[in-house]
């Protein structure tokens, strides 16, 4: 049985882990949610005695899955009976791949479309509707239990969008392709029409852990609950998240009521809370408590909780002076407060202003380095086969990296096999060995990768051209990377296209982080600087419940900071014929800000 040092966990955490049966755990920011999840996984894994039982952990991102996997491994627990990944990977691995033959639309084979190809397809389908100003940006959608849901707030466009999507689904069907949303849709159909699947799976799973439940969609809840229900109590669940941080509602994500979840899964749930915040100071916890929509308990418990936090709110700076102000704040934090640059994060609700801010900061602060959107030369689609392979291609073999690279190799092998390549003569180790033995002097990143892939495939005797998935992904990977490198070089310098810069994608962050609010999920920094906190952006003007939505976004922003927080609602940003005004919830918050 896995045991831990008494100092590893607090009472709440230990209690949640040791509780027998299913637990619904609401965890406040900085409360050691990931740690609790990690120890829970280790604890449940150590209870498994059969190779026929699995612990399933569903995370929101691949990155989180990787991180938790590594942490469980570092606890010294055998992870062979652990499966961890996103809900999409889960559905693909456990439902689609073994049972696709039972779905009419999948039985003659399927490929997962690369997101770059998906964009290109949608762009071409939008083309005839240009006059209606319909672009790919209107084409975001998700599946609910009933069918697909368009997220475009402009209802006037829906009639045309429906035509576009009819064509889109037909095109995918004809090409025997599925996108990520369809993975969920088909999985849900399989689960609901073939009851044996849930029954078999529930017999295999001793635990299903769900991270970040607040961002989970109804179709996902339904899939998981069908399996839990089929288990008739034999499969337990451990649901973790924070309803206050539910910021993906526009994509269908929502924090389910625990009782409803219990009913759907037909199981007894114990409701527990993690209320000790080990991240932020008392002052910060007090402050973001203003946006605590669900009234959860938060107690500042960090060793440095009495650090004199700076919390500022600036609504006077103009759009034009904003970059200088942010430069000033960064410099102040680094030079005066002694904060390391990689512990600073600049947040913005939207992609476009953030990208422009990134470019200006790079120009204004040449001695600093930045990790921001568009800074990476490739990697928009982490499920792309060649992206996965480039992880190995662009990292150096080292004892520290070994476990991680072996796991990447396993990923690559699995994808190769799924693509129909013969991998019987290749092992994880031999794949790594082959990769390590490829030494290229090529300085250009793209040429380097092309050459690397070509040599490797040749040595493994896998002709790319004859495997459709590999070929599709190859073309998409390079088309997308080439476009991005071109853009990077236009805006910055030639050095961004080099292998050296390519390698940075997989190195630990070293500079100031720039991120959207949605992208910062789970992250924490000493200093957080957020701008564009403007009505219409925070919350998004499309969001249904404006006040609730604004509070959740502010809650996420403010709870990222350990020490200092700088909030900015810049003036003179144009909105149609008038100007944006500060976010209402922020304006109404009564607080004595620092100067």
């Amino acid at each position, binding site marked *: 049985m896995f045991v831990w040092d008494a100092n590893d966990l607090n009472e709440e955490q230990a209690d949640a882990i040791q509780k027998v049966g299913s637990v619904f755990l609401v965890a406040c920011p900085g409360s050691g949610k990931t740690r609790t999840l990690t120890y829970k996984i280790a604890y449940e894994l150590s209870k498994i005695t059969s*190779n*026929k039982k*699995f612990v399933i952990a569903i995370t929101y991102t691949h990155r989180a899955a990787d991180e938790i996997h590594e942490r469980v491994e570092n606890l010294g627990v055998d992870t062979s009976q652990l499966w961890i990944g996103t809900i999409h990977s889960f559905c693909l*691995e456990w439902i689609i*791949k*073994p*049972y*696709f*033959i*039972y779905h009419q639309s999948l*039985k*003659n*084979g399927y490929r997962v479309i690369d997101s770059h190809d998906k964009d290109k397809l949608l762009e071409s389908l939008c083309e005839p509707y240009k006059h209606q100003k319909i672009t790919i940006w209107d084409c975001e959608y998700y599946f609910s239990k009933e069918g697909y849901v368009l997220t475009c707030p402009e209802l006037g466009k829906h009639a045309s969008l429906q035509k576009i999507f009819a064509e889109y689904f037909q095109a995918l069907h004809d090409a*025997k392709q599925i996108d990520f949303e369809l993975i969920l849709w088909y999985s849900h159909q399989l689960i609901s*029409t*073939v*009851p*044996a*699947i849930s*029954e*078999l*799976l529930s*017999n*295999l799973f001793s635990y299903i852990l769900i991270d970040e439940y607040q961002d989970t969609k109804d179709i996902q809840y339904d899939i998981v609950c069908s399996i839990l229900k089929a288990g008739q109590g*034999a499969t337990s669940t451990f649901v973790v998240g924070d309803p206050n941080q539910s910021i993906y509602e526009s994509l269908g994500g929502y924090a389910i009521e625990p009782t409803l979840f219990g009913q759907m899964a037909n199981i007894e749930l114990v409701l527990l809370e993690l209320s000790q915040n080990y991240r932020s100071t008392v002052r910060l916890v007090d402050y973001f408590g203003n946006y605590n929509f669900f009234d959860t308990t938060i107690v500042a418990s960090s060793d440095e909780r009495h650090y004199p936090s700076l919390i500022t709110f600036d609504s006077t700076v103009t759009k034009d002076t904003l970059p200088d102000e942010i430069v000033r704040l960064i410099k102040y934090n680094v030079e005066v407060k002694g904060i390391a640059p990689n512990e600073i994060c600049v947040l913005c609700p939207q992609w476009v202003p953030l990208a422009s801010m990134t470019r200006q900061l790079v120009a204004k602060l040449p001695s600093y380095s930045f990790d921001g959107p568009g800074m990476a030369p490739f990697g928009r689609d982490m499920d792309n086969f060649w992206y996965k392979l480039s992880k190995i291609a662009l990292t150096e073999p080292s004892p520290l990296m070994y476990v991680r690279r072996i796991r990447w190799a396993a990923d690559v092998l*699995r994808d190769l*096999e799924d693509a*129909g*390549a*013969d991998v*019987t003569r290749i092992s994880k180790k031999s794949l790594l060995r082959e990769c390590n033995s490829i030494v290229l002097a090529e300085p250009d990143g793209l040429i380097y990768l092309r050459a690397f892939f070509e040599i490797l495939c040749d040595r493994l*005797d896998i*002709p790319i051209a*004859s*495997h459709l998935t590999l070929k599709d992904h190859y073309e998409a990977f390079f088309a997308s990377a080439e476009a991005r490198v071109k853009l990077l070089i236009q805006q910055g310098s030639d050095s961004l296209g080099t292998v050296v810069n390519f390698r940075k994608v997989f190195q630990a962050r070293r500079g100031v982080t720039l991120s959207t609010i949605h992208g910062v999920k789970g992250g924490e920094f000493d200093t957080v600087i957020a701008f564009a906190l403007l009505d219409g952006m925070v919350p998004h003007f499309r969001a249904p419940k404006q006040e609730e939505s604004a509070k959740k976004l502010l809650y996420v922003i403010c709870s990222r900071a350990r020490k200092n927080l700088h909030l900015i609602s810049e003036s003179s940003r144009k909105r149609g014929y008038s100007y944006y005004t500060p976010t209402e919830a922020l304006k109404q918050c009564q607080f004595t800000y620092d100067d």
Partner: protein
Amino acid sequence: MHISKLTLVNYRNFANTQLVFKEGVNTIIGENGSGKTNVFRAIRLLLDDSLLRFAYKLDERDFFRGIGDWRGHWIIISLEFEKISQDESIQSLFLHGTGNIMSGAVTRATYNLIFRPKYEIRLALSELAEGDQAGLAKIRNEITIEHYEAIFTGKSEADFNDGEVYKTIVGDFDAVKFNEELNFSEIGSKIPGILSVAKEISFTFVQALRDVISEFQNNRTNPLLTLLKSKSGEIDPLVFQPIADLVNGLNTSIEALDDVQEIRNDITSTIKDAAGETYSPTSLSIKSDLSDEADKLFQSLKLFVGESEQGHEGPIHELSLGGANLIYLTLKLLEFKYQKAKQSFANFLLIEEPEAHIHTHIQKTLFDRLNFADTQIIYSTHSTHISEVSNVENINILGKHHGKCEAYQPSVGMSPTDIRNVQRYLDAVRSNLLFAKSVVLVEGDAEEILIPAMIKKVLGVSLDELGISLINIRSTGFKNVAVLFHDFRIRKKCGIITDLDAAIIDTTPVPADFEALKSYKLKCLASQTAGIARKGILEAFEHGNPWVKTFFADHTFEVDFIKSGNAAQVVATIPEVYTDSATITRAKNDIESGDIARYGKRVLRMAAQEGKGWFAILLSKQIDHQTVIPDYILDAIFFSYPSVSNEVWVNILNYRLRCIQGAAAIPSPEIVEFRTKLRAFKSGTMTFEEIRNAMLATFAADKINDILGSF
């Protein structure tokens, strides 16, 4: 759970065949070379952990040779399992990978090894235009075994035995017709990486071995060591510690022996003398290396068995071969029991030719008792002793036809009554008819004795050489046995020889008939009526079945024997039947009378007096190469053995030439010339028609010509 079906497509000597298995004990019967070992190998590729790696290493020699050009074809080995339970979580992982879901529930499971060209080759084939022979040839020319991949799938729905299904999925190579579709859900989905079927079940294979002693002497194959190894891991450390201490004490004591120390010192000083202080090792000692680890210590354990009465126990190599084999088989069975104790949900025991292990008299007992719960046992055999104890419903027969092996299930589609009858028959008269290449059924001792004798004397080859088993049913209940031969069941020829019992006299009653004649006429009439009825029944029975055909003697075997022109042979037996010279003369006159009413009555009387069997033995002594084989018998023989090979003809004709030459020291010029022709025929420069015509022309009087002429 048990294996219900094994399908082999293009694997080794199987073009396309299916074996059916039931719960419990199953038998695979087959002559040598009929593919028993390959059937087992196929099952092991899928289920035996130690053979799994070979599944990925199939090569061109694994393709069915009769396929011609193997390039592009697939090898499919498919297992089907029944009696599975979806609710038992112990089976869930297995069913997750292999369970076939029908209307929402798992009812059976399939697990396949498919060896097929890699994607790029399949793609190229699928793009061929129909009939594009040149295109196909071009693709095939480039295919090597390196272009093949082995995949394991589960949940397949395809009936791989159906040639049309094969053509749809793999392609039609003759017509060059390939499906544009490359993905077939029918072949199932790949087995998930988390599932290793071989590890889910317990599986033991007992090989037919010829040298059991060397198996015992080899550490890797010694079944005793395997058993001990599985136990050594479970030994309580507290119990073992005192033993380990003793071993260590023993080591110290040996090392401390004066003689040992003396040698050590001598070595040290000799090195120093030879190499000098500088180059000598700094220290040197002699250590006793008895291991104190349980598994290594256990390797020193040997089995001693007492076989004789005196109570002396000796090592294995002192045992009789039969005794050693019995011990070997016992240990393997125990190994299986241990494995089974690991609580896998399915247990399989495959035993190859148990007759290679044990004496025949133990076989029957052993297999009557060999019945583990929840275990499916499949054994192969060519011993009739074992097959007679197995249930005909649990038998697969392997047969060889034109170079390819096929499997038959002898009881498919039979009614329970039929099965009971066959079973009773098989139990009673040995089951060698299950082993035959083809069968001729006869009703009595006379046929059983005389037909083989006639064939041997006239043709010079024996029925065995022709692969025909002549089986005496000892009644006219042919149907009970012949029912086995059918398109669904054993696809081998079964000729039936029986008497029509037509009366040899005019049975019309005449008022002047005295009592004895009256009753004789009535008896003849009754037999005749029964014979006609039997004929009707048999003809209805064989109707539409190409495997079974009945051949009738018009009257009775002995009568028809004379009718065919063998009066002289019968006459020759008269002195052994009668002693009274008057009777002898009368009998001779009767037999030679040419009047069926007279010779018929006489020969039947003689047979009755001697007993039919004994009379047949007397008669068989008179059979020579001039004997005429009655047509209906020849017809039955050549029905069962339809294609006489040239080689057999050469043997027959050579034999006839020897008969013609007889005692003459110098062969006649005709014989010499004909022998030259026969050599030409043998080497293939002469056709059968030419040699036949030559024979008919050269030796017009020879008896073989009647037979030759009908070919």
